[in-house]
């Protein structure tokens, strides 16, 4: 087990490093940051000054190594746009995004577990097909479009919820639904498949033969076993939701990491963008690693191969 963890850890570090390098290059290739920083009316001399001040005139590998070295020493640089240290700026926004990510994953589980169970229990009935339709819809509907539909219904027509902002819990309802619904289908299909397999198993037949109530059989005996892979998937999905909240946070003007990412892309704020990408990739890598280890712990076949 120890060897397996070490191997995964090494791989995770390599992934994080590769992501940081690709992100660094892509961000630099997307346009000249000096011109963006200097603004619309800047003269050539102003731009040259900016380019030199921020070190954009050095070769890319030099800039990358310099950045990596500083990052490893805990110096995350200063936001070009907001002119304050990047790390506190990013960390201050992390709370909102974490809250949104966690509530979305809970929402996704809250709808996918019952629906997945229902679909398995009433397999091939209209309920199963309805659940399938909901899952396909969730996967196919772009979440920004779903978000606009929610706003139209819940804010403009019914006046139940505020359109945008992040001040109260009501502000989180629509973003949670929009983001969580997108993550739900994967869980739903996994639970359905797991449940169908488990429900066929001998120990379930035994449990039913003992005369246990149907609910006890399904939730206590079957679901517990069917849910094991879901735990691992949840970890990965959480990382995915944190990274995928850029669009949702922008639409709902939630003052989180995704919104900050959007702003820094608009203003070519490289230090902030770079650190957000780094932070999100590290979170994603850590969660994937955790899920790998959890899987290996639960299923010895994985760590042996």
């Amino acid at each position, binding site marked *: 087990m120890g060897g397996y963890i070490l191997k995964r850890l090494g791989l995770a570090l390599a992934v994080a490093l590769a992501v940081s390098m690709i992100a660094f290059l892509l961000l630099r290739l997307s*346009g*000249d940051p000096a*011109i*963006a920083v200097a*603004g*619309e*009316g*800047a*003269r*050539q001399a*102003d731009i040259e000054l900016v380019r030199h001040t921020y070190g954009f005139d050095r070769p890319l590998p030099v800039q990358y190594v310099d950045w990596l070295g500083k990052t490893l020493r805990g110096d995350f640089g200063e936001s070009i*746009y*907001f*002119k304050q240290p990047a790390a506190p700026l990013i960390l201050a926004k992390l709370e909102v995004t974490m809250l949104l990510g966690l509530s979305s994953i809970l929402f996704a589980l809250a709808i996918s577990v*019952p629906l997945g169970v*229902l679909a398995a*229990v*009433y*397999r*091939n*009935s209209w*309920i199963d097909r309805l659940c399938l339709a909901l899952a396909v819809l969730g996967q196919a509907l772009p979440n920004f479009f779903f978000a*606009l539909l929610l*706003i*139209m219904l819940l*804010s*403009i027509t*019914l*006046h*139940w919820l*505020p*359109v*945008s*902002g*992040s001040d109260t819990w009501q502000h989180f309802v629509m973003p949670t639904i929009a983001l969580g619904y997108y993550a739900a289908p994967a869980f739903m299909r996994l639970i359905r498949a797991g449940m169908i397999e488990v429900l066929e198993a001998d120990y379930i037949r035994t449990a039913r033969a003992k005369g246990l109530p*149907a609910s006890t059989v399904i939730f206590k005996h079957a679901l517990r076993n069917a849910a094991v892979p879901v735990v691992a998937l949840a970890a990965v999905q959480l990382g995915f939701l944190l990274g995928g909240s850029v669009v949702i946070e*922008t*639409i*709902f*003007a939630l*003052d989180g990491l995704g*919104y*900050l990412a*959007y*702003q820094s892309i*608009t*203003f*070519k704020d490289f230090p902030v963008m770079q650190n957000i990408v780094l932070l999100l990739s590290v979170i994603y890598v850590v969660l994937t690693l955790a899920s790998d280890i959890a899987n290996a712990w639960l299923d010895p076949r994985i760590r042996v191969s």
Partner: protein
Amino acid sequence: MERRKWGYAKPGLIAGAALAGLLAIAAPALAGKKDDTIRFAYDQAPESVDPFFQNVRIGVIIGANVWDTLVYLDPKTNEYKGLLAKSWKQVDDKTLEFDLREGIKFHNGEDFDADSVVYTLNFVANPNNKVVTQANVNWIDKATKLGKYKVRITTKEIFPAALEYLAGPVVIHPAKYYAEVGPKGQNTKPVGSGPYRVSNYVPGKSITLEKNPNYFKHSPKGAAKINKVEIRFIPDRQTQMAEMLSGNGDLIMYVPKDQADQAAKVPSLQVVSGETMRIAFMQLNTLANTPTPALKDLRVRKAIAHAIDRESIVKNIVGAGSRVLHSQCFPSQFGCTDQGATRYAYDPALAKKLLAEAGFPNGFETEIFAYRERNQTEAIINNLQQVGIKAKLTFSQYAAMRDAIRAGKASLTHQTWGSFSVNDVSASIPVWFGGEADDVTKDKEVEELLKKGNNSVDPNVRKQAYQQALKRIADNAFSVPLWTLPVYYVASKDLNFEAYPDEMVRFWEMTWK
């Protein structure tokens, strides 16, 4: 079937239970009029609230509402009026003297006097302090105190537009406070002397302004009437519109025409459109290394000018508030005129004839760069296509487009320019024809004329020089002036609101109906 054997509850019951949880009582939205608060949404957040350390429009708007300037340009009469200054006089070509008003206090109680002006101007004029838009301040040589309420400002060169800047981006900070906290402190806890003061600020999220109860009586701006202004930064325009539709917003701006047309049908909203100082024009690259050498031929350039149906595009696409331009500047700018300049009417037959004469009877292929109002660019491309010019569109961010222009890679550019709302032609034409990086003509004669206009304080000399420059540009079709760009505002029906060409949102003037 297996499900029969299990015999669980009817599925309909489960679905019904899920829906029941969603039922709640609909609460009506709070309108801004009820709590005397204007809710304004804008898509960008300023990098700093200190007007000298940011370069987006919302920062300029906050600046004018929270701070005051030495002079005020009345947007209705285009006259200069004393704001923090009582009066002023031009002493010589490079010297202005100001008599200041007494008894004005900043929001933190600090007194306004000559020290405020001298400290602020000398601070921002120093390039080491890195004011973001250097063009706003780099004309200032220094400010000197002549008395407690008297200052002298000298300019480095002859700078006719000085008052224009002193009425616009050059706000006055409280000397003691600014010396103590600097631009960073002015950003976290902004202190000005304007009709509104900042009561709450969360960077990147929102800023709340409250009426300044001690605002001085004789200000030409006038005191604020509405108690509070809540500015929220909402990046998505659909969301902004949703806030308006749900009754939680009172004002948004830069609404696309199609959305504004929709909003006009909503009973609780009003749509106000206004012309802005931003002009659209087409740059034609005639430099030695132009990717489209055909553009060096005057007949080809004239053909392009005749090919574009500006009247129809303005009417059908650009929309209310826009007008067709015949000179590459905003008509109210000092020195801007289209008198005596060649006008190019829409005439595709003539355009084709000119192209044939130039040796392109079947037209030619070229590329057009653009960065905003894509639908307008597409209309232009369509017009060019009709006379045989096939222009391929490269649509990109401003910075990328500007790279291409400066590298000489752009043939045609659908360009726009807002002159920083400076009402003087020196903020516009010299950028494009003054021989600097964005000049794709580099015509020596035009350059000389512009220099003459820029370096004189005699209004007649300036006017004449600019007129000759603009005439030469038009006669040679060095560029194609297109139209002015309008801005659409969507406001709550309850709000009295007026749109101005300088795109300034004057909260202090607004009232409830």
